[in-house]
């Protein structure tokens, strides 16, 4: 047990498919062969080497190599199917689920959207997403503070997103840890709500550095809070000069067209580079807000 944050060895992440009611621990979520295999190598026990050549054993191994390898596998799997996957990251309560609900309800035509929900506990978010008619699975990380590539491999296996679709991964609400773990997504989208404070991009620079887009949510509340949009964007660009920014209100709808246009551009990029191995080629269809 980690006494800093309560992380423990005991609780395995769980994957819930609300469509079937199945709950799987992520160690066994996928059929054999579909999931991660241990890395190769690690053949000769180093003790033998040490006995002959001394006591320092060179390793030169990236600590997160295993996660990165699985993330690349996810990325290749998604690319082969022309699927755009986005990793939505924010602090708890910034409006990730509300933005997703709104996006899902507004879509009027394909592409289909699948959602992977990540939370420490509860099925609340997956039920909210499913209420929109969208296919969704829930990952509960237990005491874990972020999703990792292995969890996503299991979730993709269960979600089975169709070619050419869009997969939204809602990470655990946390402005720190998700920055470190590649899931195989095409891009991270950081969501910051104006109630959180102008200086968050500087206080949590890693997350904003790793994101392609920053969404400033809850702009309908700007008259009521002390938040400087211009300064916030400048802070975000200080840690990430190339970050794109879209201010919007997921509840009131302002700015959502810009978000949909951004999504369409990402989809076009994916579709442009998509060379399907087999099956019908994916066609990027525009995501249009429903009129009225």
């Amino acid at each position, binding site marked *: 047990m980690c006494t800093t944050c309560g992380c423990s060895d005991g609780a395995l992440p769980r994957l819930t498919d609300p469509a079937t009611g199945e709950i799987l621990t992520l160690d066994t979520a996928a059929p054999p062969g579909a999931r991660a295999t241990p890395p190769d190598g690690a053949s000769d026990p180093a003790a033998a080497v*040490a006995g002959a050549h001394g006591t*320092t054993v060179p*390793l030169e191994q990236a600590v997160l190599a295993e996660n990165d390898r699985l993330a690349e596998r996810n990325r290749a799997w998604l690319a082969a199917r022309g699927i755009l996957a986005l990793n939505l990251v924010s602090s708890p309560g910034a409006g990730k689920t509300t933005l997703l609900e709104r996006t899902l309800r507004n879509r009027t035509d394909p592409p289909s959207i699948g959602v992977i929900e990540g939370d420490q506990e509860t099925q609340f978010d997956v039920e909210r997403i499913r209420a929109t008619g969208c296919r969704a699975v829930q990952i509960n990380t237990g005491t874990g503070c972020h999703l990792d590539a292995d969890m996503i491999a299991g979730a993709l296996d269960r979600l089975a997103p169709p070619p050419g679709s869009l997969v939204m991964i809602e990470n655990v609400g*946390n402005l720190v840890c998700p920055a*470190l773990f590649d899931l195989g997504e095409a891009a991270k989208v950081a969501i910051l709500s104006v109630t959180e404070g102008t200086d968050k991009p500087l206080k949590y*620079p890693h997350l904003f550095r790793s994101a392609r887009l920053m969404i400033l949510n809850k702009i309908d509340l700007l008259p009521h809070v002390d938040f400087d949009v211009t300064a916030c964007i400048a802070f975000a660009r200080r840690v990430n000069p190339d970050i794109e920014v879209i201010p919007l209100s997921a509840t009131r709808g302002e700015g959502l067209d810009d978000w949909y246009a951004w999504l369409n551009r990402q989809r076009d990029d994916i579709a442009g580079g998509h060379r399907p191995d087999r099956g019908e080629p994916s066609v990027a269809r525009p995501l249009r807000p429903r009129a009225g």
Partner: protein
Amino acid sequence: MHELTVARRIVEVCAERAGEARVRRVTLEVGTLTCVMPEALRFCYEVATRATPLEGSELEILACPGRSRCRRCGREVTMFDLLAACECGSVDLDPPSGGDELRIRSMEIEEMS
């Protein structure tokens, strides 16, 4: 938080390679621009190594700064954090190279008798 995941991976990798031997020291390169806190990592390392061949071993952390160039004056800038500024005062820097290392360089193990 994520430092515990990192510490556990270090233990897995090193224990697997060490075989029967006890590990005395692990040398780790940590970029100063990663979101890994050395103090938190040391704490988690102590917890994660318990009852493993790494128990009681020393964790040596080599800090690796990032390098960048000032877009205003062209100077090279060594980045110890993501909010680094150039001597000229500018914070308009090229995206850094390096500084994102998180790599086990080596480990020192006891001689087998």
